[in-house]
């Protein structure tokens, strides 16, 4: 096992910190379990090998070399040992720390939570976030991981205290940047729609009120302008919906899928005769889902099922449910053009459009996959060219 200070230097600070913490924990765990026979420590004199045969020195050395505060306490909370890093964090000489308690380093509520953490730590260990107070009044955000131990009849805790200031700062910064980007993309997509509305609106007026003054070719140009503006508008709507799915909270509740399906079919003439036949089976178990998310997914799948059909053929869709262990799989079988096997994964990727002759933005199925994943479900397809497709969405069953 290597403990090299340079190993993580190329990573961003937050990740580096996290990695170091994980490594230190893994090392300690390995030592507890007796999995480690020797340690290689990267020091000023190069790499040095320490064996762990009953010697306390290498443990000490390891703990002192760590960038995390380390403590051992008795069950009543008396500090038996602390490393240099902990003393530095506490801004107090080590000899004053050993023999005292952890009380001075926490605010009152935090100390109660810290004691709770120790109580549930046991041999498995437990983690929590706290504000660590140094004795000079300064404070740090820390992650504390504690683990109970028993040695020669004496019980206690070993505790790691990790300064997560950098982690917090980077994640706050990241959050801010994400927020700005979201706002930016929302504003830009929103503002892009105003000119499109004008193109569609005035285009329609030209088409209706000036058709006797424009020749056939001119009318074709107008139609192309309107259709292109419409396509752009759909693209923006889908892109907005997609980003919304990414960031919106999705509460899962028991949902009756049959009800959702029926109301979709009732709301859209494209799913009704004479334009299509959608047959929904009766027996649908309750699933855990978000109703808005489910509506979005089902209408996209149904929309594709009736869209990708040869011209002059009546689209027929059959929907049924199949119970599988703790999940319910909803099947959507269509009589459409089908999808070659090699594209079955690709169709769920953003902006991948396979069929030239059909209108689409290339976002619909990517949106379905993202939404289904956020509902802790899965989506897939079985299909052959010319033999229709069977799309499925699997969601958690309500027990």
């Amino acid at each position, binding site marked *: 096992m290597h403990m090299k200070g340079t190993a993580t230097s190329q990573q961003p600070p937050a990740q580096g910190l996290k990695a170091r913490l994980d490594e230190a924990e893994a090392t300690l765990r390995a030592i507890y379990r007796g999995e480690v026979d020797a340690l290689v420590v990267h020091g000023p004199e190069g790499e040095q090998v320490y064996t762990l045969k009953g010697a306390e020195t290498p443990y000490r050395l390891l703990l002192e070399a760590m960038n995390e505060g380390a403590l051992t306490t008795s069950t009543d909370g008396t500090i038996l040992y602390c490393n240099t890093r902990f003393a530095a964090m506490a801004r107090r000489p080590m000899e004053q720390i050993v023999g005292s308690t952890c009380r001075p380093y926490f605010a009152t509520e935090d100390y109660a939570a810290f004691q709770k953490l120790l109580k549930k730590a046991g041999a498995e260990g437990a983690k929590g976030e706290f504000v660590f107070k140094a004795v000079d009044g300064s404070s740090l955000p820390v992650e504390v991981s504690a683990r109970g131990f028993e040695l020669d009849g004496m019980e206690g805790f070993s505790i790691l205290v990790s300064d997560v200031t950098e982690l917090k700062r980077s994640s706050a910064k990241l959050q801010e940047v994400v927020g700005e980007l979201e706002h930016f993309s929302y504003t830009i997509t929103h503002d892009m729609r105003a*000119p499109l*509305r004008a193109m569609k*609106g005035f285009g*329609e007026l030209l088409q209706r009120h000036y058709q006797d003054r424009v020749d056939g070719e001119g009318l074709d140009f107008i139609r192309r302008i309107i259709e292109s503006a419409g396509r752009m508008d759909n693209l923006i709507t889908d892109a907005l919906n997609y980003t919304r799915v990414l960031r*919106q909270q999705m509460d899962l509740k028991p949902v009756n899928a049959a009800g959702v399906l029926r109301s979709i079919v009732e709301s859209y003439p494209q799913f009704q005769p004479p334009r299509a036949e959608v047959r929904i089976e009766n027996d649908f178990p309750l699933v855990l889902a978000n109703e808005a998310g489910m509506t979005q997914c089902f209408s996209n799948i149904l929309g594709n099922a009736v869209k990708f059909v040869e011209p002059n053929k009546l689209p027929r869709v059959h929907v049924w449910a199949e119970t599988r262990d703790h999940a319910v799989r909803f099947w959507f079988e269509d009589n459409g053009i089908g999808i070659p096997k090699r594209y079955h994964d690709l169709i769920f990727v953003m902006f991948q459009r396979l069929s030239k002759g059909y209108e689409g933005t290339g976002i619909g199925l990517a949106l379905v996959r993202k939404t289904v994943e956020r509902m802790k479900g899965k989506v897939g397809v079985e299909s052959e060219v010319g033999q229709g497709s069977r799309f499925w969405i699997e969601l958690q069953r309500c027990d």
Partner: protein
Amino acid sequence: MSATKASKRSVAKIPPNRTILYVEDEENDIILVQLALEEARISLPLKTVNDGREAVAYLEGTGAYSDRVQYPAPGLVLLDLNLPLLSGMDVLEWIREQPQFANLPVVIYTSSNHPTDLEKARQLGASDFVLKPSYVHEIAQTLQRLVGQWLSLAE
């Protein structure tokens, strides 16, 4: 539907509270709404202002809008959200703070279908929330419905 009835009236006979105030900074949208009103044969007067502050001034009847013959108090407000100077939400909030406008129908007329906007508008007391349609025939249908729903009470 009251829109059909309204269309038979002449402008002069329409009481002041039959005016529609449209708050919109996008000129194209204003023209489309005007054309849609014609198409729907709704002959109610449409007054437009281009930003949030003007909307407040119009409603208060102050400044350039003090002449209530030329600028009658509206019976329905169509309010865009994305406005210069004072946003649509700010205007809505201001309207609901004025006791005399407690029952004035204010319809949010926007291209934003963002759930947060919808929720906020509802909390601030919007009467309705309508997504701007693109085609004039759709705008005409929308206006017909809004006028029927929100101006019929004033008859």
